């Protein structure tokens, strides 16, 4: 989905983008300073080089040159080498500075992406997001490594050259000083168009990446539906469209450099004709004749006056590309990371998000750590208790402390405590749907009890589970775990206390063990096997070629839907939550496997609160109570 949801940010204009880029440039201060200074220095050293060259060449021809030309020629060679060395070190500094900035930005964007929560990424195309973080950030490279150093040189060098030429010949200096300021004017005109075209092009590129990712993922399905040829043609059309858009950008960008070429060529031709005609006596604009060395010096410097500007023009589309990239980033991410608040990366994503999102996001994140509102807490506790009594889910195994469910490994944290769950007037809207998925839903569950969440598909079971896990904020209403509102639970504590096994388990490329260790990176091989056995997955995993070290390919190719689901479920047994949320854990299991899995889940859930979303009446019958969500999100 490429619809920019923060379009207002992008529309705010180029000024914030320019300010933000300037702030980024200050991140690697020393490297950037030398990157800017080196071209200036190398440019200024051109003056002695050109003068020596003119003196050796012109002086010799005119018969007024130095008697021993050898040292002068050596000096010219040496100066070329010295300037090359300075330019080299400047380029190195620029490259390092650009890499520093891009790395910083990529990490910040990635952290920002993670901190927005799955609801946010779910509305974006993964191909588009990866294109933003990798390609669009790369589009900033030219801005820092070429445009900025070139821009400063383009402002000062023509001016300096013009001033040096002024005492030599005021008309040549005038040609230079008059034509040079015209150039930025032309370029600004051209630049506007270039930036707009560049933005269009980058949006098209990001969308194309999203389109590719989507079609590649479903390549097999498209082929089976007989759409292979038509989709290949669609990809061809999309690529051709992209090259058309790119050419539109380039035509304008090249126009801006053509303007400069025009002036540069005019300058060279003008100086040559002016000085030459002067020698021939056609022009009498100066009192005394210009010597040949000085004439040659003027001719040598004429293209050099325009050279920094030509370089600048060649890099001008780097600026347009960078600004367009910033707009694209801002359109998708909203607020951009603030380079002025640079600190060592904090431990958790929540903390790094707080520093990377200067605007409204930071406010949201910090309020999670805010002290609880005094007035709210006691009331929450008391109503939680009274509703629990009224809920009618009786006979819940209330194993306080949960020590019976102690697992042998990882005792560093306190034993899990079953959590009381209370939902108060929850409403949740999903984009694109007329009616809210959940509307004014209220219920509660005693600690240690189990509940089946039922209802038509699309009734909001998954949505509710995600909301309970704190992955999806409610529009209105509140969710209280253990009497505490979800919004005041510290994020890491909440993650430890609640385990959600989703319905669409994503298989990460890597081994079976890698996939399980998502739940507990410290788990030993025995822990993993124990968890697999508990999920009835031990048998087939042991039968895999390399057992738990078997690499799983794209979307777990080679494993059936039910096997993947059991693999995902195995993660549950590696956590130690007080509240377990399972989304259709048995959907693609045969009745026999289903019953074995449920036996183990219920054993594990002793002393924990358990909520299972399911369609299966047999599963629901084994739980303490059930809640049927009505279609269309009415009153529960």
């Amino acid at each position, binding site marked *: *989905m490429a619809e920019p949801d923060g379009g207002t940010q992008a529309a705010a204009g180029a000024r914030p983008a320019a300010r933000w880029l300037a702030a980024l440039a200050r991140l690697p201060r020393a490297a950037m300073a030398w990157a800017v200074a080196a071209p200036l220095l190398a440019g200024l050293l051109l003056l002695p080089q050109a003068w020596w*060259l003119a003196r050796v*060449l012109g002086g*010799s*021809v005119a018969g007024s040159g130095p008697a021993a*030309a050898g040292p002068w020629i050596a000096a010219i060679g040496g100066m*070329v080498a010295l*300037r*090359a060395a300075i330019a080299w070190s400047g380029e*190195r500094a620029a490259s390092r500075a650009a*890499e520093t900035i*891009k790395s910083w930005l990529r*990490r910040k964007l*990635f952290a920002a*992406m*993670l901190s927005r929560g799955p609801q946010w990424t779910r509305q974006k*195309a*993964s*191909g588009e*997001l990866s294109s933003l973080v990798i*390609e669009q950030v*790369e589009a900033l490279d030219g801005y820092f490594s070429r445009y900025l150093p070139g821009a400063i040189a383009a402002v000062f060098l023509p001016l300096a050259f013009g001033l040096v030429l002024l005492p030599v010949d005021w008309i040549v200096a005038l040609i230079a000083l008059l034509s040079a300021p015209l150039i930025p004017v032309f370029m600004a005109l051209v630049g506007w168009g270039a930036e707009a075209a560049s933005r269009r092009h980058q949006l098209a590129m990001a969308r194309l990446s999203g389109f590719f*990712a989507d079609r*590649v*993922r479903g*390549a097999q399905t498209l082929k*089976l*539906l007989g759409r292979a040829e038509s989709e290949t043609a669609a990809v061809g059309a999309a690529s051709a469209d992209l*090259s058309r858009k*790119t050419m539109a950008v*380039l035509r304008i960008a090249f126009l801006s450099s053509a303007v400069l070429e025009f002036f540069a*060529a005019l300058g060279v031709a003008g*100086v040559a004709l002016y000085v*030459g005609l002067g020698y*021939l006596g*056609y022009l009498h604009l100066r009192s005394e004749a210009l010597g*040949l060395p000085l*004439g040659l010096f003027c001719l*040598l410097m004429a*293209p050099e006056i325009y050279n920094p500007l030509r370089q600048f023009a060649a890099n001008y589309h780097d600026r347009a590309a960078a600004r367009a990239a910033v707009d694209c980033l801002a359109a998708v991410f909203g607020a951009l990371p603030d380079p002025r608040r640079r600190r060592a*990366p904090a431990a958790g994503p929540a903390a790094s998000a707080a520093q990377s999102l200067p605007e409204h996001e930071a406010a949201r994140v910090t309020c999670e750590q805010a002290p609880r509102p005094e007035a709210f807490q006691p009331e929450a506790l008391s109503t939680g208790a009274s509703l629990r009594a009224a809920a009618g889910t009786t006979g819940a195994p209330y194993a306080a402390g949960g020590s019976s469910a102690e697992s042998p490994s990882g005792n560093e944290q306190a034993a899990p405590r079953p959590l009381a769950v209370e939902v108060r007037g929850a409403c949740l809207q*999903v*984009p*694109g749907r007329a009616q809210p998925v959940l509307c004014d839903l209220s219920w509660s569950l005693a600690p240690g009890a189990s509940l089946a969440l039922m209802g038509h*598909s699309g009734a909001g079971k*998954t949505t509710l589970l995600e909301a309970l896990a704190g*992955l999806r904020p409610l529009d209105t209403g509140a969710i209280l775990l253990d009497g505490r509102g979800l919004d005041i639970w510290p994020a890491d504590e909440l993650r430890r206390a609640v*385990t959600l096994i989703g319905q*669409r388990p994503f298989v990460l490329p890597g081994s079976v063990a890698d996939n399980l260790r998502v*739940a507990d*990176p410290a788990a030993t091989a025995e822990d993993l096997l124990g968890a697999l056995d508990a999920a009835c997955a031990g048998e087939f995993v042991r*039968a895999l070629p390399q057992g738990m070290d078997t690499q799983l390919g794209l*979307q777990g190719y080679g494993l059936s*839907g039910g*096997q993947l689901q059991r693999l995902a479920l195995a993660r549950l047994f590696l956590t130690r939550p007080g509240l377990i949320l399972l989304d259709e854990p048995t959907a*693609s*299991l045969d*009745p*026999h496997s289903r019953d074995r899995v449920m036996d183990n889940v219920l054993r594990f859930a002793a002393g924990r609160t358990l909520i299972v979303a399911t*369609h299966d009446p047999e599963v629901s019958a084994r739980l303490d109570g059930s809640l049927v969500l009505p279609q269309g999100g009415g009153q529960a």
Partner: protein
Amino acid sequence: MLPWLARRRRSLLAALLLACCTVAAGVGLLSVAGWFLTAAFLAGAKLAFDLFAPSALVRGLAMARIALRYAERVTGHGATLDLLADMRTAVFGAIMRLSPAQLAGYRDGDLVARLAGDIDALDTLYLLVIVPALTALALGGGFSLITGAWLPPAGWLVLAAMLVAACVVPYCLARAAGASGRRAQEAASAARAFVHEAVQAHADLAAFAAEPRADARFGDAVRSLANARDSVAAAGSAGQFAQQLIMGGCLAGLLWLGLDAFRAGALDGAVWAGLVLGLLALFEVLGPLMRGAARLGTAAAAGARVSALLHEPPAVADEPEVRALPPHGALQASGLEYSYPGAARPVLAGLDLRVGPGERVGIVGESGCGKSTLLALLMRIHDPSAGAISYGGVPIRLAAQRELHARCTLLSQHSPVFMGTLRSNLLLGDPQADEARLWQALQQARLADFVRSLDHGLDTWVGEAGRLLSVGQARRLCLARAILAPAAVWLLDEPTAGLDEQAQQAFFGDLGRAAAGRTVVLATHARLPAGAVDRVLRLEGGRLHSC
């Protein structure tokens, strides 16, 4: 790469020619200007000097250079972009040919990287390497000939300098930067795939508080990307440095040799000045070459990755002579054997199945027993290791895949929802379907009520991979899409996963009417009501048993 270049050779050659003319005009402009200036000084008096030709030449060359430069850039970039679009289409076509097992060998972010980033990296090759190198050689050769006409040793010097600067230095650079270029390309692809996976696994990562670990690993990926790119840039800078040194040496040499010849009276002063200024202009062409050569390693790595994909032979390919499939017929499998690569025991071991035209067969069995594998073999997604499958008496191995896919439609467990609207997803099943047909399919898949409740109905955007739908809704959308396909055989793998009991029973109860005489093979765990299918088979131990 060569066949691609050949396809666009006219515009590519035009770009090369324009590039040569542009540089020639630039060199000519400075040479003539230097010569004219010095000659004018030496002439001193206007009478002895033909003014018209040089001044016209200076103005003409100045104008020509502007026009040529613009034309060259537009042509060159246009041709390159067309080239990249051609390649992108071909690579996508290659991806479509591969079997799921082959695709599983790539991370899907990696395939996208090949389609987008790697192909883009190839633009370096023509614009920054081939064109500048050929231009430098052509112009360098021409310039050294002219120089040699007046000053033979200087001619050899210029020729040698240009050969070193246009061939030797770029070659060394490309070798030096090759490894880091490859690393940069791999690192970019890895970082990209990492973002890709983090987006898809975001809910899992969040639920298990694994974000800090993902964050740390992404940091490593980004750091190695930055290091590799910096090494590439370092090689480019070193190339510029070398080029400047060669230019300095060449300039000093031309001054020294010219001075001797001038003093000996063998060289005209004006010609000497013209040659020196021309030399300065000539070296300008080498700037992009050095940058391009440093990136050659990246381009080579990208090229290798793209061509690996283009040349991977499809695991399942059509025979050279295909046999036509009859429009209707029995689906028959005999002695089917199949095992996944590396698996200890086969999934299917001597399976036999015959489904008559219009017959509906249910297949049940424990999860992981091979139901999905059987359906995949019937669709010829893989070929069985032993045994044969025929449709209407024609072995499907001998038929065109396209035709087989037109006869049979498969709803697999991994069927994805595509980015787009509900409508665009349905139309993939049958592009010709009209509104009524779409609604009928939605009704049969029990999704019509939901779609009617949406603000935009069929035109509702479903997000990437249908992430804006619930799992059950996404599943039913895929079912509706499969139903729409104008096929004689439906192969349905768990069509009712994600449906509640009531809807499930309603779907099965309606199946006979919905199938309307089509052959149906149905793999499911669900309880099948009477009349839903003609017979039920149990898949166990790699074979089918009636129950």
